[in-house]
């Protein structure tokens, strides 16, 4: 694999892998380091990538293993909130609302069973297809569909309940 091919096929996935690393490590710095470590490892073993059938799933798997190693090595740190969501002022009502929405949906997803949570995050945040998710979760496509379906239905029900409750509160 040439430098150009690596940049197009692998390095470009950094932005896709980063959210997963951040979810696992709960820190921007650790996530950046993990993605960097992942890409360095893949660059060093780029010859093996030529025989890989699903590069995207493979890259996610490598990144996930690096994050798991990091979690074993260190205790989790406090979640870093991006600065634009931390310092809210009355002028930022829309932003504040979005921030609240994010927190609510995150807490709903956090309550899901682990495999459903991972499936919905890999699909909706990381944008992976069913085959890629199945490979990362070491399962089959049919079961991945089931997991995603259950997770989304559960998320929808809970969001609806919260929205309905808020609507009643406003009246």
């Amino acid at each position, binding site marked *: 694999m040439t430098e150009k091919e690596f940049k197009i096929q692998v390095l470009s996935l950094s932005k896709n892998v980063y959210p997963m690393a951040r979810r696992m490590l709960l820190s921007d710095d650790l996530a950046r380091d993990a993605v960097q470590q992942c890409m360095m490892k893949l660059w060093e073993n780029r010859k093996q990538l030529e025989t890989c059938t699903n590069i995207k799933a493979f890259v996610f798997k490598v990144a996930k293993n690096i994050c798991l190693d990091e979690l074993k090595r260190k205790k989790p740190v406090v979640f870093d909130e*991006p600065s634009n969501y931390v310092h809210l002022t009355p002028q930022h009502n829309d932003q504040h609302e979005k921030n609240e929405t994010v927190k609510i949906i995150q807490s709903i997803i956090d309550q899901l069973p682990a495999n459903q949570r991972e499936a919905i995050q890999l699909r909706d945040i990381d944008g992976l297809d069913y085959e890629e998710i199945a490979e990362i979760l070491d399962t089959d496509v049919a079961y991945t569909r089931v997991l995603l379906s259950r997770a*989304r239905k559960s998320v929808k029900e809970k969001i609806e309940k919260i929205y309905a409750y808020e609507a009643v509160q406003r009246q």
Partner: protein
Amino acid sequence: MKLFNDNKITEQFWNGETSLSEEKDLLENSDGIEKAYNDFILYKRKTPSELENTIWKAIEGKKRRQIRIFSLTGIAASILVLVGVFGMLKYQERQRELEIQFALIEQTLQHAASEVAVEEDAVETILYTDELITIVAEN
């Protein structure tokens, strides 16, 4: 922004029956719960700017360091080979000098031996003999 009004697709989305492109289209053009969910997704997808460039610079830095290490190792190996060859040549030169010195001494000793050669007509008288030694007197 056009709002997404296809309830069937929306239902399929929450049932996990839509394709990635359908989901993208749906979430970007919806209101209500789907919009809230899209806001969540966009927030979670945020990545640091210049992430790829930063990583590539780190990879290049490591490449350069490896090249430097290989170069230094190569130079060190070359120096070792040169020192080895030089040492071997020195050793061979020293051996040759010793051989010449030995040959000279051998020649000198042979010359001295020939000078003090035993006279052919000398009479030998055995003074003492046993199992170990024999003492001979020459006249």
